[in-house]
């Protein structure tokens, strides 16, 4: 069963509470979660994914710089041999209250498989993960 996740908060972002909650929720839902925590670089995510042979990378960004921090992650994954790995992003991805459809489009264009608006419940992601990983 494909159930290995890498979880973390990208960039210079220190918001730790949601990360702890997500870890708790994904683990309870039956996933094997490698939690690299806050203040994680793209490289940290990729290294953890390679080491754990992960099926998906779940990127949180709360502090607003998500748009800058996530750029090029898909390409770096490809280069690192993680072709086709699921990439999700969620949290408060951009600076300010922006039209969600625009934001989503920007993240999908960057190569993310899914992006989630503020306040998305962990359960939504769990359901999507199960679908995308073919449970």
């Amino acid at each position, binding site marked *: 069963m494909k159930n290995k996740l890498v979880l973390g908060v990208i960039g210079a972002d220190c918001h730790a509470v949601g990360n702890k909650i997500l870890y708790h929720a994904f683990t309870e839902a039956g996933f094997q979660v490698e939690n690299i925590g806050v203040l994680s670089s793209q490289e940290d995510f990729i290294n953890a994914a390679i080491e754990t042979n992960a099926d998906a990378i779940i990127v949180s960004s709360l502090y*607003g710089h998500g748009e*800058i921090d996530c750029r090029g992650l898909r390409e770096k994954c490809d280069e690192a041999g993680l072709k086709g790995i699921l990439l999700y992003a969620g949290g408060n991805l951009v600076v300010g209250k922006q039209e969600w459809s625009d934001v989503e489009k920007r993240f999908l264009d960057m190569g993310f498989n899914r992006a989630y608006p503020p306040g998305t419940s962990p359960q939504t992601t769990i359901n999507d993960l199960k679908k995308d990983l073919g449970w």
Partner: protein
Amino acid sequence: MELKNKKWSDEQFYKVREEVLNQWPTGKEIDFQEAADYLKKVPEHKNFSLKLKKAKEEGITLAQPRAGVALVDAHIELLTYLQDEGGADLLPSTIDSYTRQNRYNECEVGIKESEKAGRSLLNGFPGVNHGVKGCRKVFEAVNLPLQARHGTPDARLLTEIIHASGWTSNEGGGISYNIPYAKSVSLEKTILDWQYCDRVAGIYEEMGIKINREPFGPLTGTLVPPCISNSVAIIEGLLAAEQGVKNITLGYGQCGNLIQDVAAIRALVEQAEEYFKAYGYNDIELTTVFHQWMGGFPADESKAFGVISWGSATAALAGATKVIVKTPHEAVGIPTKEANAMGIKATKQTLNLLRGQRLPMSKELEAEIALIKAETKCILDKVFEVGNGDLAVGTVKAFEQGILDIPFAPSKFNAGVILPARDNNGAVRILNAGNIPFTKDILDFHRSLLEERGRYEGRDVAFQMVVDDIFAVGKGVLVGRPENK
């Protein structure tokens, strides 16, 4: 340098300073004497310390927003709007997250991209990159005292720049800008770096220039029990005082239960004053800052107004000197200037309705004050003990041993064992105290309150309560009850 709670010698300070001012080109713009001359010309009504002092004397609570964008002109526009339309009493400049991590190259990218995009791609004002020139431009454009608000473990260069620019207050501290904001920066390093920042303020003070310093009270903003944040506040106050800081604002983040919140502020003032006296700092001007709810907010703007106003009311009833204002956009993203002004207006309306009103002393309030003081004393006594009398050393050891433990903090230097949860009245209590050195009486008291809640809710006192409490305010309630309660 060896960590000690001891005023830095000039030799120590100026040696480190050379290095600091070389961290980024704008550091070279700074000339201490020229800066002092500039600061001496700051008019009274734009000096942070003086405005706080006056508010304290008059018994009123001032309102201060958070705000910062990437570009100088846009930042000026934002602050001017909050001043004129919002009616703010004090102004901030919230610093962006790359600056906070000293990643000034990334700031450059953010500034460039913001110029291109016509909107801020940074979540704050990159003060170091804009340097004294940019920061003075901001200061000269507004008509209120200005403070840097950030979350920077190593804020030495930033501190030099903002004070030299006429900003007469700086938020932060060696604990409060490390444990909640960083993952792997050692406490030794941040305490030293904040001694430097405090020393800068102290040197200006010695030159007759009043600079206000404000440790960051709310820490992780999430269910932090008052004794924890009060302990940190008092420690950082003492560390600052040792470096010559005279004007100190200690802070606290609203927990939500009125009696506990008022008790926390009262206990903080009384106990801090005792400690300042006991350690020989006799001329500290102490004021307080109350932070409106710092945890997860409801996304609905009307509900957010409810949270904002209740925070303002509590601040007034507690008699805090200032209140830090949230906005109706809090749950979603950095507010527009309009949303930010809305938060200030709701806050000021509430403060004005409550001007002069205080929560009167009652059995319940008295007991809560006594409890918080007793808890705080347990912690502080032990901190001094493990430091063999040195507060700086004691603090590092106390974190190592979990004597000081901040809930939900990202730092690997934090034990992270403590678990808080609300009692039936919404006061934040401690479910798992880990190594925090409370007496058995205190531990039992917390336990009994949580068990009372457990009985009411028909469930065990366990981690699920904590999770439910984290989401509660965002969902519109204070206590995270199970579905049927």
